C-alpha cells in the first residue's frame, strides 16, 4: 500500500504541473503515513527518471516501451494499468493536464474505479482521504470521499499545490516494461503544431489588460484597448473572445493559451473560469472589473470594481490619465 504519482514529461522535459503534483503526493504521503513512489512514462525516460531520483520518494518507476514514444490513450492506459495492478497503490495521483484528461478516466474505468478530477485541496480525516473539488465553474466547493475499494484515483488542478514545496531526497529507479502490442493502439498521433506565429509575447508584458465575454460585441473592444493604452499594457483576452475571432488567438490567456504573471493583470468582464485563472493567477497584482459580485475572478483579485464595465472602464481611463499627469 502506497501512493503512486504518475507524472508527465515529453521528450525528456517535465511538465511544470508534474512538480506541483509531486508536492501534493509528498504531503499526502506524510499525512497518510504512506510511502510515495513516482512513475515516468515514455520510450526512454532515463533522464527525467534520474531527476526524480533526487526527490524524496520511495522509488521511481521508469515505465518504458517503444510504443510509448508518442502519447496515445490506448498505450498509456495499457501500460499504467499493468503498473498499478503490479504495485497495488492506495492512491494514484496525476497532474490535471490535457493529456491526463485524455487518458486517466479511461485508465480508472479499465480498473473499475472513478477518478476524482481537478482537485484543488485535500484533508485527511481519521485516516480517510477527503478531496476538495470545485462545482459550477468555481462558485461552489465540494468535499468528496471515496466509497469503494482502493486504488483511489485523483488529478490535481494547476496551481493548487506549490512546486517549490517538493522535498529533495534519494530514490532508486526501477524499470517497468509493460506488455503492449501495436494492434491495440487504435489512434495515430501526428505532429504537434501551432497555428499562429507568436508575434505577441504576453509573458514579457509588465501590465496586461484582458477582456472577456462581458464586452458583449467585437465593436466594443476599443473600450478596453483605450484602458490598455492608458496603462501602457498589452491587450489579452479569455477564450470566448478569441474563439469568436474578436482578438487573435495569440492574445489568449488560459490553459489553452498563454500563461502569464505580469506586475498587474486587469481582468475586464471576465468571470474567471478555472481555465482562465490557471493562466493568470500568478500575476503580482490582479484587478477585476465585473458586474457579478459572485464572479470567481474576485476570488483571486487584489482589487475589484463591481459594476458595469461600459461605465467603469471609461471612468478608469480618465482617472489613470489624471494620476499619470
Amino acid at each position, binding site marked *: 500500500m502506497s501512493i503512486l504519482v504518475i507524472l508527465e514529461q515529453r521528450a525528456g522535459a517535465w511538465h511544470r504541473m508534474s512538480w506541483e503534483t509531486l508536492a501534493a503526493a509528498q504531503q499526502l504521503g506524510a499525512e497518510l503515513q504512506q510511502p510515495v513512489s513516482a512513475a515516468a512514462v515514455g520510450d526512454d525516460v532515463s533522464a527525467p527518471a534520474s531527476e526524480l531520483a533526487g526527490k524524496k520518494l520511495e522509488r521511481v518507476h521508469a515505465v518504458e516501451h517503444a510504443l510509448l514514444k508518442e502519447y496515445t490513450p490506448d498505450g498509456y492506459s495499457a501500460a499504467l494499468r499493468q503498473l498499478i495492478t503490479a504495485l497495488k497503490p492506495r492512491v494514484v495521483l496525476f497532474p490535471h493536464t490535457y493529456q491526463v484528461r485524455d487518458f486517466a478516466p479511461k485508465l480508472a*474505468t479499465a480498473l473499475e474505479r472513478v477518478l476524482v478530477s481537478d482537485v484543488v485541496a485535500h484533508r485527511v480525516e481519521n485516516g480517510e482521504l477527503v478531496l476538495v473539488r470545485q462545482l459550477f465553474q468555481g462558485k461552489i466547493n465540494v468535499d468528496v470521499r471515496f466509497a469503494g475499494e482502493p486504488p483511489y484515483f485523483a488529478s490535481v488542478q494547476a496551481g493548487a499545490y506549490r512546486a517549490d514545496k517538493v522535498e529533495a531526497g534519494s530514490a532508486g529507479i526501477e524499470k517497468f516494461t509493460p506488455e503492449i502490442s501495436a494492434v491495440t493502439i487504435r*489512434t495515430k498521433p*501526428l505532429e504537434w503544431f501551432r497555428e499562429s506565429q507568436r508575434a505577441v509575447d504576453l509573458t514579457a508584458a509588465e501590465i496586461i489588460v484582458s477582456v472577456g465575454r462581458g464586452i458583449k460585441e467585437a465593436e466594443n473592444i476599443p473600450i478596453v484597448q483605450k484602458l490598455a493604452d492608458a496603462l501602457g499594457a498589452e491587450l489579452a483576452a479569455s477564450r470566448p473572445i478569441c474563439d469568436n475571432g474578436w482578438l487573435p488567438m495569440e492574445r489568449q490567456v488560459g490553459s489553452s493559451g498563454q500563461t502569464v504573471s505580469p506586475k498587474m493583470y486587469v481582468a475586464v468582464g471576465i468571470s474567471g473560469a478555472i481555465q482562465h485563472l490557471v493562466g493568470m493567477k500568478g500575476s503580482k497584482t490582479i484587478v477585476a472589473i465585473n458586474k457579478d459580485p459572485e464572479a470567481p475572478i474576485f476570488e483571486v483579485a487584489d*482589487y475589484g470594481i463591481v459594476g458595469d464595465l461600459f461605465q467603469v472602464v471609461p471612468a478608469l481611463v480618465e*482617472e*489613470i490619465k489624471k*494620476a499619470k499627469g
Partner: protein
Amino acid sequence: MLRVDTSRPWIQEADLSYEINEPDAYALEEGLQLKEKHSGEVVVLCAGPARAAQTIREALAKGADRAIHIEEENLGAFDPLGLARLMATALQAEKPDLVLTGLQSDDLGYGQTGVILAEVLGLPHATIIMQVEKQDGTIRVKRELEDGWFQHVEMPLPALLTIQSGINKLRYATLMGIKKAKTKEVKRLSTAELGGAGQAAIRFARVYLPEKTKHSQIFDGPPKEAAAKLVEKLKFEARVL
C-alpha cells in the same frame, strides 16, 4: 447567486436556470454539420430529469433526427462511471459510427463522461477536439493541447470524440425546426431498465461556498468614485502606476 442546500450535500436548485451545456451545444452542432456533409442520422442522448425534455426538444428543433432520454430525477446517486454505463447500454442498440460529447459540464465539471463512455463501449477516442474530418472509414481530428499547441490524430470508426467549445458556429432553431421537433421521436428509458444504480465509488460529503483565500478590496458605488479609489490604491499601495 448560488446557495447551499442545508438538507443534503448539494445546492438549492431553485436558484438555477437550465440550458444545454455549452460544450454539448458545440458537440450537437458538429454532429449536425457532419450529417449535412456526409448524410446519416443524428441521435441525441440525454440523461437527466423530466425537465431535460426541454433541452432535448431544443436539440431536435436545431435538426437532430430523434432522441433518447434516460429519465432520472436523482442523478446525484450516480458516479460518472455508473452514468456512463447506463448511457453505453442505451447506445449499444444504436451502433453509432461516431459518438460526440461535450468536453466537460459547466456544473460538475468532471470532464470525464466521454472518455469513460469510450472505454465502456470499447471505442477509440480523442478529447478537446477542434476539427473533425471524415476520411475513408477513418476520421482525422484536430486535438487541442496546452499553450497554443495542436495535434492531428487519426483513428478508425466507430469512435468517440469530446468536443471543445468554439469548434464551430452554433445555429439557432428555426420556426420550422421548432414545429418539426414536436413530431420527432423521443424514446424514454428509465435507469432501472438500463441496469440501475450500482454502488457509487465517490460521494459528496459536504457542499459549501469557497472561502476567500485572498483578501480583496472591492469598490462599488458610482463608477467615477470607484475608479478614483482603485487608481489611488494602484498608485500608492500596489505601486503599479
